[in-house]
């Protein structure tokens, strides 16, 4: 009966992040891997949800919200998380065979959504160590079949915030080639050092060709509520909404009501969110440098740090993370899962892409107590000079 599974489903493999979480659980490890907070959501949001459940908002609900310069009646589709907004967007815009450009490294889910809709992902590598976007590389990846570019900024896993120049490169390409842009802006309110997040859609001539996806989850630490949205010109928003209605019909009603309260939070909430995360970022950056990682830049946004193993470390990212779990009881995510290769690119040697096995992603959306505990545990594995012994010897524990 196994042959009954769809060809599409057969190509999907279990997430390496999830497998590591299972290993971590078995080892009772501190989880700095998956990107969700271990501290509570703000009370005023929880209270709003409770009020909504207590009153009559438990039936199907259609609600729109304000964002940018949009018509809330026609330009917004509320979905079950940015996850669903992105999936619905792909079904809404991709015909079988259409190509979609993605920047590498990238969040693992985009590729699968593109393929589910029959599209072909095309990867453009950002250049380490600062993950810069090269204009020529981008333009060379276009073909007659290119339908859209996906932009995630602030960026998971690197913590990069795309610069104005880079946004203009992308916008210029979209205009020149008449293609669409789909953005994932879930970390839009988590930026540091006074860095301002700029929406690609706000650039000249971009709003009518951009679909913005985002959510409540990261900004309000309610990843489990499944409230996200797509904002786009009416023709796209309505297509997305139609698909969303067929896929889930609606996002949880009481949380949509709470979202209204959340999104009208006073500026002080967002300021303190940023400040808190910034101090966690500084803490973890200092920690990782101290224990021997290489960091060429501090993350400017998101709650991830993409740290590089030094040359002296002979372990791959996966081996290193396994050792870190077993020896220190701390979990992080090996970076290789975020890197992809185009199916047609066999002209580059292995060496050119060896950096793809040398990065580890740490999440710092954790309470101060958790971060402190992680620091203590890592400290126990360090030698007198500071760095982790793992950085030199690459000793693996017996299996």
């Amino acid at each position, binding site marked *: 009966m196994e042959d009954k599974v769809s060809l599409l489903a057969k190509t999907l493999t279990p997430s390496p992040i999830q497998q590591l979480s299972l290993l971590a659980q078995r080892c009772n490890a501190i989880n700095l891997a998956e990107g969700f907070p271990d501290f509570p959501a703000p009370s005023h949001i929880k209270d709003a949800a409770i009020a909504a459940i207590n009153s009559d908002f438990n039936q199907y609900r259609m609600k729109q919200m304000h964002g940018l310069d949009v018509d809330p009646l026609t330009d917004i589709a509320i979905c079950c998380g940015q996850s669903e907004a992105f999936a619905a967007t792909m079904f809404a815009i991709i015909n079988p065979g259409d190509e979609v450009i993605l920047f590498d490294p990238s969040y693992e889910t985009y590729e699968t959504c593109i393929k589910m809709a029959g599209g072909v992902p095309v990867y453009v590598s950002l250049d380490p160590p600062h993950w810069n976007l090269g204009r020529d590389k981008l333009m060379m990846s276009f073909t007659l079949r290119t339908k859209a570019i996906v932009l995630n900024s602030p960026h998971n896993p690197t913590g990069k915030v795309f610069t104005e120049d880079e946004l203009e490169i992308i916008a210029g390409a979209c205009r020149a080639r008449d293609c669409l842009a789909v953005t994932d802006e879930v970390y839009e309110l988590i930026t540091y050092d006074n860095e301002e997040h700029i929406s690609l859609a706000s650039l000249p001539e971009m709003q009518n060709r951009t679909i913005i996806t985002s959510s409540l989850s990261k900004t309000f630490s309610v990843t489990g509520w499944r409230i996200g949205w797509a904002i786009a010109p009416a023709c796209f928003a309505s297509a997305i909404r139609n*698909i969303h209605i067929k896929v*889930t*019909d609606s996002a949880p009603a009481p949380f949509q009501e709470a979202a209204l309260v959340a999104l009208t939070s006073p500026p002080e909430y967002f300021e303190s969110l940023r400040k808190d995360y910034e101090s966690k970022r500084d803490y973890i950056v200092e920690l990782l440098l101290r224990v021997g990682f290489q960091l060429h830049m501090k993350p400017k946004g998101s709650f991830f740090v993409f740290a590089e193993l030094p040359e002296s470390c002979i372990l791959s990212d996966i081996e290193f993370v396994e050792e870190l779990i077993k020896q220190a009881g701390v979990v992080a995510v090996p970076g290789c899962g975020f890197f992809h290769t185009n199916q047609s690119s066999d002209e580059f040697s292995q060496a050119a892409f060896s950096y793809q096995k040398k990065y580890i992603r740490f999440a710092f959306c954790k309470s101060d107590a958790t971060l402190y505990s992680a620091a203590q545990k890592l400290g126990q594995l360090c030698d007198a000079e500071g760095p982790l012994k793992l950085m030199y010897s690459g000793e693996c524990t017996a299996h």
Partner: protein
Amino acid sequence: MSTLAIKHGAINLGQGFPNFDGPEFVKEAAIQGIKDGKNQYARGYGVPDLNLAVADRFMKDTGLVVDPEKEVTITSGCTEAIAATMLGLINSGDEVILFAPFYDSYEATLSMAGAKIKCVTLRPPDFSVPVDELKSAFSKNTRAILINTPHNPTGKMFTREELDVIASLCIENDVLVFTDEVYDKLAFEMDHISMASLPGMYERTVTLNSLGKTFSLTGWKIGWAIAPPHLTWGVRQAHSFLTFATSTPMQYAAAAALRAPDSYYEELKRDYRKKKAILVEGLKEVGFTVFPSSGTYFVVVAHTPFGLENDVTFCEYLIKEVGVVAIPTSVFYLNPEDGKDLVRFTFCKDEGTLRSAVERMKEKLGK
């Protein structure tokens, strides 16, 4: 219809959700979940306690023992369970058999999966399965058949004999069965039968259900798929890229809901029987031809005694001139012509609303 209805201040017996709320104990459980901090991503295929509660309930209902970890997947409503099943288990070009009239998400998700729909039409007065038409719908390309029982919009419940015929055709042709059973607790005229419980059928069946209709919490979006591990795998793959995870606090509350004592379900049926009586008697007195509905909270009637052209024009007339909303059933057919004589009313509304609607219809339509 809803927008037109609001404009005219019409009583809405169209869309199938209650205008009353869910039980307090379930709402309290969700509130406690939020307060206790259950607000982050749940495990993708479900909070373990809910998977267990679903498996326990399924055992009570069907006698089948399933593994909550390997055979139960929680989704954002049954709608998402359907989408994940189609996208996870159907290949482009596969044929899938549907019974018309059908819930409109089936057609949409099948076309997202690139499937070819083969339709078998159920006809009044009893909407029984036309066996010859069904047999000829099977071909070597048939991958699956979808059954919704109790059935939206007609209220039909598939009998044991009908399920036996379908089962033997599926075994003979090696075809999967997807069953949408969201109204299983609203079975009035006969007992609900799950296809998965028939001999030889569990291994090829995906059973789909949800919290919404049973507990009047349609907006919470808690549903599930129960299937053997090799089919569950496909459903979970698609699900993890459609929504990734389902609302966490609601899952905890759903587990509490599913452990409700039998008295809850008995009272639910009692209440709905009363409502059904008000509506059905009322519709008959107004002059509709009312077709027997065994389950769900829907009833389908022929509007032809009133001399309007088709179901859509009748429904528009009903809103504007009478102030009541019904759903034109042509939306539930591949060929809208098949539904032009029929409209669907719901009785998932409080008794006052139902009585008012009947009064309005008697006054403005009554013969």
